[in-house]
């Protein structure tokens, strides 16, 4: 049986898009399989690892737990749409410099979570950074270099 598809219109990285996805698809499926927007990764598909994190109306959410139908008429932003964001660029540079990126699978989700933290708390303690990133699992770095990067970026941005 062919799975029934449904048309959805949403704003993706500032552009209106219309996309056909299987009825009840998650935003992660729509992004990766139907739109081939690949920065949001499928790790656990359970909301636990954070690799799929994207912005919905400016707030980080799990793409694997968000239905595409929920995004109808709303704005979705992925790492592809973050070029030109000063806070993000600073975080990215610190991630590279401190060795916070190894395989890179977790990196987009980490960056989106870190950016939200810096928006609400421009100079967080190391402990606050760790708690804020507790929903982003990294299998490579051991986290210390990621925390270094976020703290370094925070320091640079608050100067």
């Amino acid at each position, binding site marked *: 049986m062919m799975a029934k598809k449904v048309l959805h219109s949403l704003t993706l990285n500032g552009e209106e898009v219309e996309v056909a996805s299987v009825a009840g698809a998650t935003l992660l499926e729509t992004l990766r399989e139907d739109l081939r927007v690949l920065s949001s990764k499928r790790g656990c598909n359970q909301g636990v690892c954070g690799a799929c994190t994207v912005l919905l109306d400016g707030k980080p959410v*799990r793409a694997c737990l968000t239905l595409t139908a929920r995004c109808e008429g709303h704005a979705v932003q992925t790492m592809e749409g973050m070029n030109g964001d000063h806070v993000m660029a600073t975080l990215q540079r610190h991630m590279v410099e401190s060795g916070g990126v190894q395989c890179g699978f977790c990196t987009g989700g980490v960056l989106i979570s870190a950016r939200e933290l810096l928006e609400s708390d421009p100079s967080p303690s190391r402990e606050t950074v760790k708690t804020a990133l507790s929903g982003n699992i990294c299998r490579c770095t051991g986290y210390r270099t990621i925390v270094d990067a976020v703290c370094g970026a925070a320091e640079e941005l608050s100067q």
Partner: protein
Amino acid sequence: MTEVFNPETVEEAVALLAQHGEAMPLSGGATLIAMRNAALVEPSHLISLDRIPDLRGISRDDGGGIRIGAMTRHFETAACVELTGSLQVLRRAAGMIANRVVRNMGTMGGSVANADPAADYLPALSCCDAVLEIAGPDGRRTLSIHDYIEDWYETALEEGEIITAITLPAPVEVSSTYRKIARVSGDYATASCAMALDPDGQGLRVAIGACGPGPLRDRAGEKALRGKLDDPSAVSEFTSRLVALADPVDDVRGSAEYRLRLIPRLVTSVLSELTTQKEMA
């Protein structure tokens, strides 16, 4: 494949649920979509409650009581300045659920409906003597949080009913707080404790989470403890009763035996935090 509906009124949502036997209400999706992704549930239809204005927002009634719409996200509850004094406990609990991203998604209605024994809202709501507003095929009704949990993952919610709001008595100026013991930040509780002092400071209300099918409250024990909060042997008698009433299980977050040992320590430590706060105030 799941068909998704976006009703705009409670009546429409209830009618859609009645119409499609395999339909389930969808709020934040933080639990339901994870379960569907794991093929633990396969709903034919999802009735999204996201576009129903009636289910949104936190408001105050004429008597000062607070109504939290079922679709209120955890981050909104965690930031709600109306939740002061005796209701601070609920605000604290909201801020300790999972992590920031999940708090942007999950809702109070969804969490209460899901009735996970280790969820953070249930003990906090029990400590606040919350009341649930429910809508279903037979109309609207209200239900005390104390009559809500019937067994492990079993609630008094009937087929086709949805939770529309959670109401709380007007806050009074007393200390209250929520403490959660978890393996790592962002995990579900191994055990938790929601506590508020009585308005005169002579007694307390306490609910323990993750140590039985629902929040553990011993209202008779609370009564017996009134006026004796500074008497260590009375407090110890009270915590022994709680331990006797608890019914924890062994799971990845801790053994039942460990949980039973946590209860008295949690209660005495949170109590001393609250009474010190009171003396400093």
